[in-house]
Structure formats: structure tokens, C-alpha cells
């Protein structure tokens, strides 16, 4: 399976988009993966794997929002122009 470098970058972008799309209040709270639920318990317990994954999701949603918007605009316009 020959994978090109652009495929990796696109896959990475789509992966981060998928993480950014998960809504905290509507979806993650329902399945108990929300960051606020974790914090309102016994403090921030960042040693278990689940807590770390939740922290990662929360951070990606918070900090990668603006760069993701810019990157998506670039990639979409490139794909429109170049096909």
C-alpha cells in the first residue's frame, strides 16, 4: 500500500477535525467522557489512561480550533482549485 506524504497530512487533518467535532455538552457528557465531569469529581486525576485521553480531547478542542479553521480553509480551497 503506497502511502504518499500528502495522504498522511490529509489523514492528520481529518483526524483532528474528527476530534474537534465532538461536542462536550451534547455528546461527551452523555457518555461520561467530558472534561468537566472529570474535574468536578475528586480533582483532576490525570494518571489513568482515560483521564489522559479526555484531557487530550479537551485540549485539542480548545487550542486547535483556530489553526484547524485556517488549515481547513487552505485545504478546501486547494482542493477546489486543483481538484
Amino acid at each position: 500500500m503506497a502511502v504518499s506524504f500528502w495522504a498522511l497530512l490529509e489523514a492528520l487533518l481529518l483526524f483532528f477535525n474528527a476530534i474537534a467535532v465532538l461536542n462536550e455538552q451534547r455528546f461527551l457528557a452523555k457518555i461520561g467522557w467530558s472534561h468537566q465531569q472529570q474535574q468536578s469529581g475528586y480533582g483532576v486525576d490525570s494518571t489513568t489512561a482515560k483521564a489522559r485521553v479526555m484531557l487530550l480531547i479537551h485540549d485539542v478542542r480548545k487550542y486547535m480550533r483556530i489553526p484547524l479553521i485556517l488549515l481547513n480553509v487552505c485545504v478546501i480551497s486547494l482542493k477546489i482549485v486543483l481538484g
Partner: protein
Amino acid sequence: MAFNPYQQPTQPMNGLPQFSPFFANNNNNPNPSNPMMMAGQQQQQYAQGQQQMDFGNGNQLFSTMMSQGQAFMANPATNLALQHGFSVAENYVGKNLSRFVTINKLKYYFAVNTSYVARKLRLVLFPFLNRDWSRKHGTDPSTNSISFLPPRDDVNAPDLYIPVMAFVTYVLLVGFWLGVQNKFTIELLGMTASSALVWYIFEVAAMSLSMYIMNINCPIQTMDLMAYCGYKYVGMIVTIISMFVLNSLGSSAVLLFCCLSLSFYLVKTLRLAMVDEGGAQDHGYKRRTYFILSIVAAQVLLSFYLTIY
């Protein structure tokens, strides 16, 4: 003779920048009344000036563009702009590069000499003969602190020279092997290189991410991880060389041996690299063991996958 795009036109240039064939007045026609005639005259003059170009009537546009390019490059304003651009780029890159890539740390991984490379290759392929697996400490003269010795002085230190060289050699050998089988195209070389690079980046990123998620107490540094994940290319090179000589069963045996050697080497080295130095109780022992085993499994799987030609 072949077409030489770098040859300067033999007729003298005007002082004005010649960006359009309609401005040129190289021939002796002082009344540029007909632009099409001008273009035609200029084409004839260039065709005479560079008799190597044997274009014919259909390629006038191409030769016009080439002549414009040469006029552009010979223009002194272009040289000035280029120099200015280079100096700006140098300043900007020089100031901001140290924020992203620490050059000193990178220099550590490339401080090798030939005897180190020979010993390391022997270590990766035949680790059974080694006795001492610990990395040596020494005083760093620039920062005056105790740190690991560079690879020049310590055979157990990871380096990035061997992975880089082995990666390039692997790509070339795959191209050579495909050529021997008459299956070679130029695109395959680039595709092999980018595919192997993508898998390498994916592997290093997955290992770093899993080290964070599994909350390992003493994680391996990213550069060290890059080095350790790059040693499998040595085994892959040996396998591909053996493909030339042996049949598929023999090369599979060589691949198996290289994978076993690499697994042995990695287990011994990573166990020492991830030792938990704080506290008497060792809580993360199981996680570290699983992590080391997963690294080794990834190396073996990728070695098999990237040498199935």
C-alpha cells in the same frame, strides 16, 4: 547539438528590462509599427543568435519565454532583489529557527565517527556478543553539566546518522531490486521513499502518543525514539541484499534473524532507557514492559511489510 537553456544570447541587450517581445528593439528597425512583425523579427534574431535552437515555426512562444527568462536573469535589478530576499530570509530564519528546532540537540545525534558506526552496526545485527548495555555519563564542556556522552564516545548511545543513511540506502536498494526485476519506474522510487517515511513518522508519533496516554514515568525522548525506530532499516538493507543472492526462503530467514537481533537489542536498550529512578516501588513496570514489547512488535511488523518485494 542539444538545446542549452542557459546560454546567453549573443546579441547585445538593451538597458531596459525586456519583459515583452514588443519592447525589444534589437534589430535595426527604428519604427516598431507592427508588433507582430517585431515579434517575428526578434524570433529570427534569436534563432540566428543561438543556432543550437532548432525550433521550427510551432515553438515561437517557447523560445520567446526562454529569451525573456534570460533577459530577466541578466537584469541587474533582479540580482539586487534576489540578494535582498536572501538576506531577509537568512535573518528571519536565523532568529526563528532556534525556537522550533534545537540545533545543539540535533548535533549530539550526528556526532559520530567511523569506528562508532562500525561498532553500532555490529551491535544492531549481532547484539548477543555485547556485555555492557548502559550509556556512559560525562561532563559536557559547553554547559558544564553531567549528561550522556555523545555517540562518538559511547557505543550504546542512540544516533540519527545511521537511521538517515540506512533509510536512503533502503530506498536505493529497493529501486535497484525492482530494476533487476524489470519493474522499475521513476515514480516507484519516490513512492517507496514517501511511503517508508510516512510509516516512520506514523510509528514515532504513535509511540510518543501512547507514551503520554499510558502515563509512563520515565518516557523516552522523542529524538531517542526516532533513533531507535530507525535502526530497523539496517536489518531491512541486509534482507534486501540477501534477496539478490538467495531465494525467497533464504531472504525470509535472513529477515527473521535481523528482526530477532533487533528485538534483542531494543529490549536490552529500552529497558535501561526507561528505568524508573524515583521511589522504591516500581508501579509502572507492567506498562513499561508492554510498551517496549509494542515497540518491538511495530519494528518487526514494519520490517516485514516494507520488504515484501
